[in-house]
């Protein structure tokens, strides 16, 4: 999920404040597909991701592109309004109670070298890595991927050589939304979904992305692992409820000493 945020910020330079909210939409989609069609959440990644690509594409084209040149606080407000609509739209449709998906392999686990690993968690991690690998390949090898990286490097230069920047931005936002969809479908197996989950995950994604480096894809993965490990350690050593403090403490330190993040490049 953090990967999607990083991709969007890296290229489009808009901070997506509706990111966690979009993920809860994906989670609800997965629960609905499971309840209605009996589709395994990992299989529902495909239809949800496709739908999210078009959703992200349309969102960028219709709402965000006119805001690209506006000041930051104005973009922030725009996405905040979108987030507000999403959270409460979900509340209207699904109600406030938590929803979850039960599959038979949820409680099973593998034993790897004496360590027990949940099957669901392992599959979720695999899905994340696969998506990341796919994105890497896309950005490195395809024409569109190269064009997007050109836009990120130099907006004006990309315009001069005749790239359709607005379309590429929309494409990028669509791809970011795909990452969100994958994360959402995988997350359904790990946590129950409620409408207010969104804002908390938006914050978490920000912490991860900034620690790793905004706009850097390997950074987002590194940040995710780092925050996960530090929260687990803090929960073990101090108090489980204080673990968030460590994440934000880490965030403050990173912002002070390396604002571009661990693997980010300076603007």
């Amino acid at each position: 999920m953090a990967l999607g945020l990083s991709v969007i910020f890296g290229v489009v330079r808009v901070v997506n404040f509706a990111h966690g909210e979009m993920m809860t939409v994906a989670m609800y989609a997965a629960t609905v597909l499971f309840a209605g069609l009996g589709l395994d959440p990992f299989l529902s990644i495909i239809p949800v991701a496709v739908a999210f690509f078009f959703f992200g594409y349309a969102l960028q084209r219709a709402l965000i592109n006119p805001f690209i040149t506006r000041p930051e606080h104005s973009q922030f407000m725009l996405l905040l309004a979108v987030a507000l609509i999403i959270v409460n739209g979900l509340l209207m449709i699904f109600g406030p109670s938590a929803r979850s998906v039960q599959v038979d392999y949820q409680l099973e686990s593998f034993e790897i070298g004496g360590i027990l690993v949940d099957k669901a968690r392992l599959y979720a991690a695999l899905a994340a890595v696969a998506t990341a690998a796919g994105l890497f390949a896309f950005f490195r090898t395809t024409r569109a991927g190269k064009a997007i990286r050109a836009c990120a490097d130099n907006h004006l230069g990309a315009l001069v050589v005749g790239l359709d920047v607005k379309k590429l931005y929309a494409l990028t936002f669509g791809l970011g939304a795909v990452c969100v969809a994958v994360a959402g479908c995988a997350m359904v197996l790990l946590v129950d979904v409620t409408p207010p989950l969104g804002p908390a995950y938006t914050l978490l994604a920000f912490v991860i992305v900034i620690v790793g480096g905004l706009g850097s894809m390997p950074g987002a993965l590194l940040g995710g692992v780092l925050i996960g490990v530090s929260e687990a350690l803090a929960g073990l050593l101090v108090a489980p409820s204080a673990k968030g403090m460590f994440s934000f403490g880490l965030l403050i330190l990173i912002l002070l000493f390396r604002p571009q993040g661990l693997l980010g490049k300076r603007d």
Partner: protein
Amino acid sequence: MSRAQASLAVLGAALVAFPFIAGNYALSVATLILYFAYTGQAWNVMMGFAGQLSLGHALYVGVGAYAAAGLFYHYGLGPWAGLWLAILLCVAMGLIVGFLAFRFGISGVYFALLTIAFAEFTRIGFDHLDWLGGPGGLFLKVAQRDTWDLANFRGPPLMYYYAMLALCFLALLLCSRLLGSKAGYYWQAIREDEEAAQALGINTFRWKMLAVAISSAMTAVSGVFFAFYYNNLFPEQIFHISRSIEIILGPIIGGIGTLFGPILGAALLTLLSDGITDGLAALGWEIPGIKQVFYGVVLLAVIMFLPNGVWPYIAKRLKL
């Protein structure tokens, strides 16, 4: 007297007279509007004047509220003493955040995220501070509500209304003075182009620090008000990011960097949210969340079509 001053005088008189015609409910809505107008004004000093986007102003509301409430709760010291501690603590916090951010050249989105990080950090910290109630909350004794006990800031809703009105008026006065002062012009220069301001010999670090200090001190006062008006404090609520966002919605909708934007924005948003509640209740639609969806749509429309806020648009129409 210019047209603008005359309109302001009429508005002021109307607000002073308001409680005589209004019921208790209208009075509480008006108090809420004034509260957001005042806090928005405080935020506007930092963002609207000096161009530093803070998304963590709940930090100062919360610290201010807890400082005054803690003194009252544990030592029986009234808010007039607690106020100074609140201001002192908040200015210190603001200066720490500002010092760290500005010293390391952090601005824009990164500064905004840093302010969120500090607010969240403090929120979780207060959750573990049992002396101030922890996650279970801190409750102040609700005293007799029909006598004016100014020393302990306890009294009927009318007292809180007038206190907030006075604060709003003082804030407006202070902000208009600030805008016309040397500091105001330096801030605007920094907001428009920080590098150019620095090239002209403005010590941008010092002036940005001043903006943060003034803004956090003003916000500390709203924290104290919050504590004694609502009488209960939960870290989960007061430091939450949605609080910070509530504070900044008013000035952004009303018009960033203007004097009347925060006031107009607070009034519009509070009345809108109330109107939506009443309207939906009248229609018999009791679906949870529908109110916020409407709110979001209206917000979206304002941002899309009036990017500079509502006040500049109205001011132009009225030729103020």
